């Protein structure tokens, strides 16, 4: 497995996230979760000749890969996307192996960048956590990105406690913008903290 910095331009990636490594690490996790199964899927699509879908996938990876510092992956995705837009199906299929290889390498490197868990607290700060959780609901429902910061504080307040996994689940729903579900989970967390 390649070291992360051999595949990714980490400096540029962190810069893209406002200089915050934790933001980049969170995005790396989201990338792995969203696109981890794509290499196999691309090979299957190539086998059936579904070039429009390959073009759509390449379009997604081109932008996200660049933001995470995966420049060669982004370039490979760009080439594939362009070929598909130009209707060059044979070229698209010929580019798939390179694209898949670059994607696999980037995924391996990004898996190494998982964010560190906050250190467990001796005692979870339940009062602070409750106040934070109560602020969350409206932010989650509105899709307000300020919810991300509140979630980080909440994660720190409840680190190592039985509630930590609930905060993670809310965060994942929010990152996917399943905002109603995220708000419902926040409601459950508030009820648990109150008891």
């Amino acid at each position: 497995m390649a070291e992360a910095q051999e595949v990714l331009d980490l400096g540029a990636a962190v810069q893209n996230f406002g200089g915050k490594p934790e933001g980049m690490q969170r995005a790396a996790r989201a990338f792995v979760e969203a696109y981890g199964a794509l290499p196999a899927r691309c090979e299957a699509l190539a086998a059936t000749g579904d070039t429009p879908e390959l073009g759509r996938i390449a379009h997604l990876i081109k932008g996200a890969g660049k933001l995470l510092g995966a420049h060669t992956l982004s370039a490979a995705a760009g080439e594939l996307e362009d070929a598909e837009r130009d209707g060059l199906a044979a070229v698209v299929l010929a580019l798939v192996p390179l694209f898949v290889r670059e994607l696999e390498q980037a995924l391996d490197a990004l898996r190494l960048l998982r964010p560190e868990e906050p250190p467990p607290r001796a005692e979870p700060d339940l009062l602070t956590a409750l106040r934070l959780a109560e602020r969350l609901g409206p932010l989650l429902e509105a899709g307000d990105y300020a919810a991300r910061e509140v979630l980080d504080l909440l994660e720190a307040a409840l680190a190592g406690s039985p509630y930590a996994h609930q905060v993670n689940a809310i965060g994942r729903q929010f990152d996917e913008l399943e905002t109603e579900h995220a708000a419902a989970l926040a409601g459950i967390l508030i009820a648990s903290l109150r008891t």
Partner: protein
Amino acid sequence: MTLVEPQKVLVADDDAINRQVLGELLKPEYTVLLAKNGEQALERAQKHAPDLILLDVLMPDLDGYEVLRRLRADPQTAEITVIFISGLGRPEDEANGLKLGAADYIAKPFNTTVVMARVALHLQMVRQRRMLEKLAHVDALTELANRRRFDEIYEAEWRRARRNGEPLSLVLLDIDCFKQYNDHYGHPAGDRALRAVARAAASCLRRPADLAARYGGEEFVLLIPQADAAQGRSVAEAIRSAVEQLDIAHAASNVAPHLTVSLGGATLTPQGDEGPEELFNVVDQHAYQAKQAGRNCVVWRHG
């Protein structure tokens, strides 16, 4: 001190990584709302009225072009500035986006510094446009809506009342013996009196749709949608009383030793071919009757 609320930017992109990058980038300066598809973008635009939308072109349900078309078709969202942010980076893509009415086009993968600079520039233009709109709609002396704004809102409220079969109350207010006031105390004092009356009138309007406007000179007009005659008259009477309680000395008045106002009002549920000017004419006549009746009173049309 008035705290200026940060401007709102809606980021509509189906890619979580892009949303996160843009969220981190814009968060220190703006309130950032996120949407992952076209439907969510339209819903958030209607509900939260963002100042600017960064709109991805390729999204799985509604594409960005269709979202922009729908935004422009809805009066509530038609004026929102939209910047396309798209992986379709060919010149014809950019030209197409701009032809549809986008303010700008940013190609993905984007450079974060360029995104910030363009967002800041367009939001500055939004602020300037709002300021100009405000200046065009506000009477500089009293800071109430001006006549032009009143005409626009009155027309819209008239249509709404007719559509919904709801009553619309209108009041015309005239400051009694204002010429004598100006002659006696001078124009600067007259301006202060106009501002005081404007504040008193506006303070008696309670609901968001109620509107107080300076109609011209010492005349003010008050539009009170969804108010029946009793409610409308009660507001008019409250204004008359509020002005009296200001107790602004008026030694040249032949009505009272203080500043007073005369008000004419009427309520109508618009229907058929009636136009807004008919109600206005009735109110104007009743304001005249209030003057004829000795001033410092409200005359309301019966029936």
